[in-house]
């Protein structure tokens, strides 16, 4: 059974989606290029291992006639 969905965002989460004054936008923290590339690589590896585990052929086709 899936746990119920949380239906609100915390104040800290909401802060992430509030615009700052235009002059301050350049000062907002950004992830570094290394951090981003590491996340991309983690995702690539995760995809590869899951993709290798997927074997559509192992779920054999039914021999039942649908009618």
């Amino acid at each position, binding site marked *: 059974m899936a746990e119920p969905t949380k239906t609100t965002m915390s104040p800290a989460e909401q*802060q992430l989606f509030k615009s700052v004054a235009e002059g301050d936008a350049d000062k907002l923290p950004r992830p570094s290029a290394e951090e981003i590339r590491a996340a991309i690589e983690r995702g690539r590896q995760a995809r590869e291992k899951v993709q290798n585990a997927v074997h559509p052929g192992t779920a054999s086709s039914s021999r039942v006639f649908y009618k």
Partner: protein
Amino acid sequence: MLRPIEVVEFTPDLIAKRVGNAKAALYLVDYLTDLKATAVAVEPHYVDRHYLDDFANYYARSFRAPDPHCRRLHFFCGINASRVEQLLDEALLGEKAFNAAMAELNESYLGFVVRRPLDAAPLGRTVLRPYPPEGRRHYEVVRPYRVHLQGLRLVVHGLAYQQQDGGAAVCASTALWSALQRVAHVAGHRTPTPFSITEAAKSPFPASHGLMEHQMAEAITSLGYTADRFVPAENRALFRAKLMACLDSRLPVVLGIVTKVKTGAGETVVGHAVTVTGYAGPLAAGDVPTDFEGEPPLRMGSATVDTLYVHDDNLGFHAHFEISDGDTLDANGNKILKLYRGRTDKPNPKWWTPDTWSIESALVPKPDKMRLPLDDLFLNVIEHRPTIENMFPGVTLHYRVRFRAGVDYLDRVIHRDPLEPTALRKFVRGVSLPRHLATISVYAADDRHLIDVVMDATTVARDPNKPDVLAIIAPGVPQDSPAWARVAAIAAILDVPFVPGPRT
């Protein structure tokens, strides 16, 4: 020979008289009563392309051939028979009157039923407006049907249904026929007839034997479409999520279902096929296990679906069915996924005894250029999840995946999503999108739509060293917000366009 259109008041007796008392006819009466049908216009001589093809290839060569033509019944709500009669008459009094009559009839039009001259299966091509959404019903697999009645152009949005006749087609062909009504429309093709589907399946047996799953897939590909499939097996949550991904993509799903029946000698397994046309919401987000032990589950906003709307040629169209995990095990030791052909939230009709089947597989006809497998929609989430989590640190996220037409997505971006005007203009002026897209939609816990990660769905081969993202569209990420700064940095590394939401 002149045979005028007959207009009468809608009554249950009328349906019994014109269509009979089979379960499909009783379903039709209940459905039209729920839609508050008031009047019926009957075309006494109607040539239906789908029946005609069945006739030419099957019935014409039988010993007692039925008539080659049909009747067609058109249903209206909110106006009585005399008003319909009056509008049909007034329509011929000049262009202004014609357009006024057409507008009023269109407003009241519920759809039509082709009455075939087959006593055992009179319900031919039937297209009726679905039930009103009322905030919970999602009929995703519908399309417009343009109808001509006395030269008036009427439109109904629905998905064609018909009873299986057992001669030219049984449930497997009929379920595919309904499914392909939608897919052919998207692909810009003429819809295949029941007989052409049965023929395309290349079964060596008579049509009455039914079709096996691989024969149904053969029919899909022979007719110029792509077949995709998925099974519940050990991961019923993933099956539900895939089912929902198809429906959100407005792709029909043909479910292969089985049950055991008693015979004179013991017990045997029988199969049936039905077409899923929609689902009931709202849906809570749920965890979907991945196919690799150790890879965390995906939080999907679609994994908890339990009510489906289904075209079942044993019963009727957009019928309310329910899916749930069963207690019994399949041959591989996995819990079965049950399909309850009825409803548990209120009484079922007296003439219908609900029953429970086991869902064995799902077959999805797709437009031929939608080459990306359904599995890849989920692999895309696995691949991009670390990057997306990096965009929104500390935020509880869930995902929905779907295929979309490139033109429809662009239309949505221009007209529906709140986006920052300068970035939107730059994107729309410069973008070139493929015919079919795959998108990951990312939501916060309060269901706020944060971003779409947009990818190409027309290509299977991909460069594993280069993420194949085409754009990041972010209606829920306001310009100049902390999240905006993070997404912008990531979009720059991915070298893709990024369109944020307006400043807040």
